[in-house]
């Protein structure tokens, strides 16, 4: 049982990554593509979380428990925290691009877009 759990979260992260990439590759709508990009990014959160976890650890907030209790890693959590907020704004930027694209070409299908014109 322990053996199975020691790699299961990494397998879930790989599955999410592949599913997100599959969605991007076979997408027929730009907004669908952007949302699949968000799923792709969340696979990295699962990997980071799994690296820092410790069995029986408490969250790295010592407002209650005393300082010596074994806690999970705070550094990867700091990385994930800013990453989530930045992901939202990058998605907003991409959505603004999609809106402008539709305004000019009336098309949202990545397959139908031709080369840029001046």
């Amino acid at each position, binding site marked *: 049982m322990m053996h199975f*759990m*020691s*790699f*299961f*979260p*990494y397998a879930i992260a*790989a599955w999410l*990554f*592949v599913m997100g*990439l*599959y969605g991007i*590759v*076979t997408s027929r709508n730009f907004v669908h593509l952007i949302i699949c990009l968000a799923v792709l990014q969340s696979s990295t959160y699962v990997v980071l979380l*799994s*690296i*820092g*976890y*410790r*069995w029986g*650890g408490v*969250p*790295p*907030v*010592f*407002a209650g428990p005393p*300082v*010596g209790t074994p*806690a*999970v*890693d*705070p*550094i*990867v*959590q*700091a*990385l994930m*925290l*800013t*990453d989530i*907020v*930045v992901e939202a*704004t*990058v998605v*907003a*930027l991409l*959505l*603004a*691009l999609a*809106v*402008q694209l539709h305004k000019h070409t009336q098309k949202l299908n990545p*397959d139908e877009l031709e080369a840029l014109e001046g």
Partner: protein
Amino acid sequence: MNRTGRMVFFLISVAGFFAIYLWALRGLSPFGHYPGPYGDVLNKVAVYERHATDVVTAVNFDYRGFDTLGEEFILFISVIGATLLLRRQKSETEDGDQEDESPNRTAPAPSDATRALTLALIGPMVLFGLYIVCHGQLTPGGGFQGGVILATAPLLVYLAGDFESFKKITSHTLVEAAEAAGAGGYLLIGFIGMILGTFYLRNVFALGKTGEVNSSGTIAAISIATGLEVAAGFVLLLYGFLEQTLEIRLGGGKGGGKK
């Protein structure tokens, strides 16, 4: 590249990705047995060195404060890019020749239940957002989370009323100034360390007593600056998207956008 070509390329890349991933996983310790020294070192010393009980916020704004400065500027630039893309361009002024297809129909006003609930929640939401921003160094929270909570308060105003009331409370220049003040404030707080003779972004304010709101030096100040910037950034994004979308006014029924 047509679809089948793309699928073949995708399958090859997935196979390559799996090979590299499995090779990388063999070097990691199994799940649950975190080996690394840095997390344990930080958990032990952060409370004593910085008088902050939330180690994640201390890492974010102090130990790795330079990375967070970079990420905050990514946010700033994305907001600038999105508002630039969504601005009303000269070619799309009022749709003057657009006939009103259904002049007797107006947009339904928000129901009384929606109005009551959202109006009641605006005050507590602002207070809650400020609480999360200010207590970032004690409990889970901080500038990023509290800033987004603060940005949902004008959204509640929009839900309770219409776009005109939303426009009235988010006067554009003030929100832009607040965002610039937040981003610039983080930058300048770092310079205070250099002026006082040590390195950039060093924690030079008084550290205070652990467990009180007024503790941990520059972490609290940076948290407030970040909260301001994130809140203003999201309000700008909302304003940009809503301005592009709304054209129906309550009780009017007349179409056409307005600047």
